[in-house]
């Protein structure tokens, strides 16, 4: 087992474990902290795929900005376990059954997708994820969606002002 493989399995286990902890934690603050661990593990995966820019952006935007905002909101709302609305047992059962069905479909997909099995991800090589190539793709092949997304951000900004203004 090479170093990259060991790292891969370690990061995967870490991501899965902390993602489950996000769901099981009773305290919302703990959930958020576990979510930050998930983001770090996923950023580790990006580094393994030689996509350093994506890894850093993931950390700065998600683990940095958004999670801090999340923590603030949760602390301001002062959530505790008593305030949590009680779910009916049937609702829980329905959730478990439909979620389980979806999991089964996805697992069977991965097992049956024979055309996927010969392909492997490029680990530690390839230069698609480097900032130079990313910028080139963004301003040549994907320039139309890049420019059109400005409309999206503009409308989001207008919305923030409309809702925020008295």
């Amino acid at each position, binding site marked *: 087992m090479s170093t990259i493989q060991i790292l891969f399995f370690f990061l995967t286990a870490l991501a899965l474990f902390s993602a489950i902890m996000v769901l099981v934690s009773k305290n919302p603050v703990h959930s958020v902290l576990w979510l930050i661990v998930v983001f770090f593990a996923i950023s580790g995966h990006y580094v393994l795929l030689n996509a350093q820019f994506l890894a850093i952006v993931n950390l700065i935007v998600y683990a940095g900005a958004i999670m801090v905002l999340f923590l603030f909101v949760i602390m301001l709302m002062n959530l505790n376990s008593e305030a949590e609305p009680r779910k009916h047992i049937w609702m829980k059962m329905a959730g478990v059954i439909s979620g389980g069905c979806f999991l089964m479909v996805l697992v069977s997909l991965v097992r049956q997708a024979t055309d*996927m099995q010969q392909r492997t991800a490029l680990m530690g090589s390839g230069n698609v994820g480097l900032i130079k190539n990313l910028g080139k793709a963004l301003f040549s092949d*994907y320039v*139309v969606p890049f420019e059109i997304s400005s409309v*999206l951000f503009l*409308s989001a900004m*207008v*919305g923030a*002002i*409309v*809702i925020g203004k008295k």
Partner: protein
Amino acid sequence: MNAIIFSALAGVVMMYSGIITSKKTVIKYIAAIALVVLIAANLLQVYGIWQISVDTRDMLSFEKFGLVFNTLAFTATLIYVLLSGKEIENAGVNVAEYFALIFFVLCGVSILSSFNGLLMMFLGIEILTIPLYILTASDKRNLRSNEASLKYFLMGSFSTGIMLMGIALVYGATGSFALHTNAPVALSATGGIKASFLEVAGMILMFVSMAFKVSAAPFHFWTPDVYDGAPGVFTSFMATVVKAAGFIAFIRLFEGHTAILGPTWKILLAFVIVATLLIGNVTAVFQQSVKRMLSYSSIAQAGFMLFALYSSNDMAKEGLLLYSVAYSLATIGIFAVLIKLKDYAFDDFNGLGKTHPALAFATTVCLLSLAGIPLTGGFFAKYYMLASMVKEGGPLWLLIVAVLFAAVSVYYYFRVIQAMYFKEGTPSVQTEITSGFKAGMVLLAILIILLGIAPSLVLNLFYF
């Protein structure tokens, strides 16, 4: 490209118009003029006279179908602004911003009518929905409006997440965002279709998300609450232009993929259609508020529009254009009258036939069109939907179910007509009704009847 660029520009112009003038009526007329310019720019592209050409690397493809839909959607918006402009002015303080957001929605509509790749589809859907979350919350003092907006935002983001998961799976299977509409389908030795399982799963996830966006059962739960909580004038826009655009995106996304999904796809779709018709129509019968009844009826109408997806042939596309026009015009008309009333209950319509005969006549025509009575636009819309399904060899029972539910829908639409003509009382008209509004409503009614006599008025746009 004209429609996308001009609608985005018009949005920016509207934002600045709020700085220049504080007169709300002036802002409304600027919006109406911008809409006329937008329609003209789009028509120039439809007839190939002038267009801004951009190398989109095959991510957008401007076909006649999408461009004609743009024209119809913009025209419906113009009628909406002219009829309900007064209520947009009174919906809140930031009138210029509301119009700007409406133009951004139209930008999303024109992307959705011409996308040729999943990336553009995602952007289009987001540009379409994000302004709607804000318009839903525009009545800031009203708790229900806030609740509706938050509910819409949370559910909408969740369904967008499902869509992204689907796009990721399809990208993983095919390695590109392209739609592959013309890709030949390879048959494996056993006769089954050789498609990557990841692609099928991705398409199913996208189906779930799109069904949510057009409020097809069983993904319709957000619709009544959001449509009911939002200010009536914006519900009118959400239930018409936006919903029709969702269907255009739906049919564009799936028309090339039915072969990949195999025969199970038709069974799945038939189940969704029947569930949508059942839930929409049966629940609408029991509503006490006209606004809530109309939101359930919009679910029921979505069930009919899903037939276009079921057959997805040329006739279905024609029918979908006709359906979006007939449904949008009728719903815009009813909402325009409804938001003039104090409350949204059936009793508010009592005696409208005596005090405002012109309005009552126009509302009656709109309701008849929604119910699909012959000589109104709605009849041919429903006819085209069902005929395209029969042409494609759809099962007979599905046809019978659809006709039965259309008959059920007559009941709850006629309750409003009954209240207007056969019940005593004074209608609680809140705002003053101008003669211009009356004339507009009667013209709208005439337009709907004209569509019912000569549906080729719309269909010819497709060919000439």
